[in-house]
């Protein structure tokens, strides 16, 4: 007897299957991350009490990605909205997803103060070394020598600075109980474990948790599948992967 197979044979249960195929470009690292986030939410069984804040940029394409509450916020203001939501409704599990433009450029002060206050939310920043939705302009996170549309001869660290390291900065001011880490979509098993820890730290320890994820952007890097993973491994040398341990004072 042959059973009929659903369209969502490989999807997490919390996905909104009517919105698939999603709006992301072919080979986008962000949809790989969202898929694993979906599996972890299934695993922890928190679909009914999760709220997700999304930002302007490619992260807004996730507005109908899941079957739970999603809040669209102003550019870079996804963290303060999530903090406000959590303060008013302590039993919800609140997440915030941003790109590196929203997290490290326009919304950096919101992010830093949320970490400083140790607000119990989970923040995911997806780093693809550029402003992707507007055409791949140079961002603070672009690595030295990287060719973008606004740095055609490669990023010059003399004028534009080196690559911006977010988790390392947040580690300096955050509480000891905060969870801060960096993962990459090139290692999905490790990514899943880190996403799980990021959410569990909010639930169990009631403190700030932060995860940066390195994601490929084949549209703006103008790469094929193998080239984008080569560039991703180059990024992993610049941005070391792992959990940031807090020095004891």
């Amino acid at each position, binding site marked *: 007897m042959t059973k009929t*197979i659903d369209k969502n*044979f490989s999807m997490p249960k919390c996905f909104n299957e009517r919105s698939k195929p999603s709006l992301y470009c072919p080979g986008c690292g962000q949809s790989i991350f969202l898929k694993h986030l979906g599996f972890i939410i299934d695993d922890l069984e928190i679909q009914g009490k999760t709220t997700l804040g999304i930002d302007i940029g490619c992260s807004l394409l996730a507005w109908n990605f899941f079957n739970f509450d999603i809040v669209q916020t102003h550019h870079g203001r996804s963290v303060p909205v999530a903090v406000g939501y959590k303060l008013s409704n302590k039993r919800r599990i609140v997440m915030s997803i941003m790109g590196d433009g929203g997290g490290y450029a326009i919304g950096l002060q919101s992010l830093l103060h949320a970490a400083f206050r140790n607000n119990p939310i989970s923040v995911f920043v997806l780093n693809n070394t550029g402003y992707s939705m507007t055409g791949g302009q140079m961002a603070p996170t672009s690595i030295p020598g990287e060719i973008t549309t606004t740095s055609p001869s490669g990023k010059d660290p003399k004028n534009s600075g080196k690559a911006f390291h977010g988790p390392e900065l947040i580690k300096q001011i955050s509480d000891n109980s905060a969870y801060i880490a960096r993962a990459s979509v090139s290692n999905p098993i490790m990514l899943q474990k880190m996403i799980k820890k990021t959410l569990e730290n909010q639930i169990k320890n009631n403190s700030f948790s932060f995860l940066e994820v390195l994601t490929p952007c084949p549209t703006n890097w103008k790469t094929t599948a193998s080239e984008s993973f080569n560039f991703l491994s180059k990024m992993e040398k610049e941005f070391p992967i792992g959990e940031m341990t807090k020095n004891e004072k």
Partner: protein
Amino acid sequence: MKNDLTKIVISGEGGQGIQTIAKVLAESFKDSGFYVSYIPQFGPEQRGAPSISFIQYSTKEIKYPRFYKADYLIVLRERAIPATTTFVNSKTKVIFDSSTIRPNVIKQSENKKEAVPATKLAFDLFGKKNLNLIISGYLTKLFSLNEKAVWKIIKNQLQKKFSEKKDLEDNARNAFIYGYEFTSEKKNFSQPTFKTNKTIIISKNREREAFISPELCKGCGICIEKCPVGALKFGDEIGVYGNPIPEIDIDKCINCGNCFRFCPDCAIKVKKKSK
């Protein structure tokens, strides 16, 4: 000559090479001594979203690059039609890709419709990337431009790609000539054979079975890159963006799980058969 301003809209999906066609066409008009304006419609930089470009050419100066009714509308994907219907009036000549669009979707009188099954031709004869060259060739003939001059501009535009591979240039040249000499379909349109398969492809052997969904696959090729034993390669089926999708050699597969762990669109799954 009373009104010699000609207005052209070219539309399709982002990633098809719409803006390349438009740039080539605009440059060719300029070299033939016309005044030209060309402006793309800006939106999010995203594959699969409708991509539209506006071109005008005239023997007089052009004051403003935008317009509301076009003389020619070139549309290459069904998804781009809703974004372009506002530019059509009773005088607009609509040229569409009959291998991807059903003729009755286009609301225009029969004698104003023309079709080029460009996607099918590109797939069958020259490889999928040469779709825009076939269209460029066809438009060169339509606007009676000099074929050799246009080819020179294309060569300049795509120089970087051509310098990487030698045979790419000859292939592109053949596609361009083919498009130039192609006589378009009028009234008797070919059927859109170029459609995404709605059913899930299942391949199985004694130990394991694999599912691939063409409705979800965008053809990024990550699974092919990540497969440690080379069991996946691009096949003949068509995915959601008109892209080729992978097919699996189930006997080579070792059930490691890399393909569905990395797939961004949840389009593939391999599992062991339960006994």
